[in-house]
């Protein structure tokens, strides 16, 4: 555990410091090579989550009695392996691979994400209440901004564009500016905690 944490600290400090001091410029090619390594590793790391997911589905099938929905995992694994094998055999320009992408993945992606529109609609009826001042401010400013991007409202009432432009350019800039500065400081704090080995769970 100690050596990997040490690697994290060295890399973070090195890459941060080289940005500020010109005399460290000779080390720059080396640091760039490490960044390239990290890029290649990130692509490899993608498989880990997928592997965990597949194992979870295999386990669901294996222990059928505990989970009433194990049957669906068969569909998951079947399509997973069809897609995976077509990609491996034909490559990413292969006809089966692209067909599956265009006619299963793309519409699935669109349909799945667009269902949130229905959920938002029903939530609008049942949960979005003017409960208190906070929710009221949020809902009212939200409504004005929503109307401003819809031609049905801005056509007859061009003033909505002006109001929404003010909301977008004045209070929203102020809010996000404060928020972003806080978040940036938070990232610095997190990086420091990682450098100081206070967040061992990062590598757990």
């Amino acid at each position, binding site marked *: 555990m100690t050596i990997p944490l040490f690697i994290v600290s060295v890399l973070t*400090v090195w890459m*941060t410091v080289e940005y500020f001091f010109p005399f460290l410029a000779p080390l720059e090619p080396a640091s760039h090579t490490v960044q390239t390594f990290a890029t*290649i590793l990130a*692509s490899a790391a993608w498989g880990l989550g997928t592997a965990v997911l597949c194992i979870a589905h295999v386990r669901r099938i294996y222990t059928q009695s505990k989970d009433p929905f194990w049957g669906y995992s068969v569909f998951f694994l079947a399509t997973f392996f069809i897609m995976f094998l077509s990609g491996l055999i034909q490559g990413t320009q292969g006809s089966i691979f692209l067909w599956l992408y265009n006619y299963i993945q793309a519409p699935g992606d*669109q349909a799945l994400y667009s*269902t949130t529109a229905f959920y938002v609609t029903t939530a609008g009826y049942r949960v979005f209440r003017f409960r208190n001042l906070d929710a009221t401010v949020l809902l009212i400013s939200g409504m004005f901004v929503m109307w401003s991007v819809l031609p049905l409202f801005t056509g007859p009432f061009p003033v909505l564009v002006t109001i929404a432009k003010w909301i977008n350019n004045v209070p929203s800039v102020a809010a996000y500016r404060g928020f972003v500065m806080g978040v940036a400081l938070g990232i610095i704090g997190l990086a420091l905690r990682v450098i100081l080995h206070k967040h061992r769970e990062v590598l757990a």
Partner: protein
Amino acid sequence: MAVTIGMIVASWICIMLYTMLYGDNFVSRTAEHIFMGVIAAYELVINLEFFYNKGVARAFSPGGAIYIIPVILGIMIYARLNAKTRWLYRYPMAVIVGAVFGVTIRTTVFSQILDQIKGNLPPIAPLVGVPAGQLINNLIIIFGSLAAVVFFIFSQEFKGPERYVHRFGRLVLLCGFGATYGNTLSYRYELMAGTFISNLFQPPEILPYTFGFAIAIAIILVIGFKTGLAHWE
């Protein structure tokens, strides 16, 4: 021909997924798992291709011997799947995490802190020699952003008059998030309209198949629910 079949399949996948809105059922679950299987494999294949082309292939080409290091580290990531070899996984993760924090904080401090302070100062937000309306707007931006910063100060109790600053900060933040809310709402409907246009109703010659399938699914679901093979929620 393959294209037309594809379009019909695409519209069917959409209909199957949309049935989830009418109660959770076997049709939508099947479609969801099929979709998740395809997307998981797709992302895996693309990333493996990147890993192979930029790592493995390069390591065995002339002058690229150094790239054997990320290849070995990349394989070590999968040691996490076994409890005994889990410790090996920490080395590649250390490189990923270290590099990410290194490249992030060095520029964050400029683009997310200093440039934002600059945004509160002239010439971007001048206070002298501007019309009254703009002066008020600039004052709102400056003091609003400072109040939002104050809202996120946690080591200080807000008991005296400064609690009004704190409260003002929260209202400014909520007004800003309200803008996100409004935009996100329209974005959700945009997603739906886009799905309808690109999958369900285009081109017109697939419409009979789309509606036919929708009716078939409706019948299957009703039979399923009536016979007790499936249940609403």
